[in-house]
């Protein structure tokens, strides 16, 4: 049962990855691509690591730390990229 949940989390994560990465080739704006990247990188990777957590619970401290840092760094880097993409601003 846990095997099943673990593999479905990993598969969902991989689907998120591909769904978010393929639009990078398209012609949308940088910001639009950032939205799909936050699906792929943050949520997809978190789901994959969560699947691993179900599979090897003995390593929970490191995997939990991985999930937390993934969430923080991906989100903050997304913000930084969005900030940089938006030109000089009002100054």
């Amino acid at each position, binding site marked *: 049962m846990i095997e099943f949940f673990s593999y479905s989390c990993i598969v969902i994560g991989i689907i*998120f990855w591909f769904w978010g990465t393929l639009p990078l080739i398209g012609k949308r704006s940088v910001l639009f691509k950032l*939205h799909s990247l936050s*699906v792929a990188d*943050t*949520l997809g990777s978190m789901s994959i690591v969560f699947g691993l957590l179900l599979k090897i619970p003995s390593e929970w*401290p*490191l995997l939990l730390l991985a999930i937390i840092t993934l969430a923080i760094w991906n989100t903050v880097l997304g*913000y930084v990229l969005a*900030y940089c993409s*938006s030109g000089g601003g009002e100054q």
Partner: protein
Amino acid sequence: MDQIAYLDIILRLTIWFLLTSDFSLANIIIGVSIAFLLPRSYTSSGALQDWLRVLWEIIVAIPQAYVEALQIMVRPHNEEEIVRERVKPRRTPGLVFLDIFLITFTPKTIVLKYHEQGWYEVHRVRRRKKR
């Protein structure tokens, strides 16, 4: 020491124990001394209730982020718009950081800029144009 300082120490200890996953006496002593030795900022730190509320909102945001991801995937959100959101009153730099984190974490919204006059500039995807 105010209450936020306790939160700060707890955060440091949590990261330390997750990283080392070792509860021997020596490791606890090292972790506690590092947590107290690391420098901390002495800027105004905001009210404890505000911090607890934001931390709770982050926990709630995780399932919400997955729901939004599924919504974007199932129905294409092709319209983009930039909206302004007002910053809640009494926000200190730490709380503003968590607010930006919270908005950017959900896939449909990204903070572009924080204006010190009290606005976030938020980029958002939508399904179709407003009429």
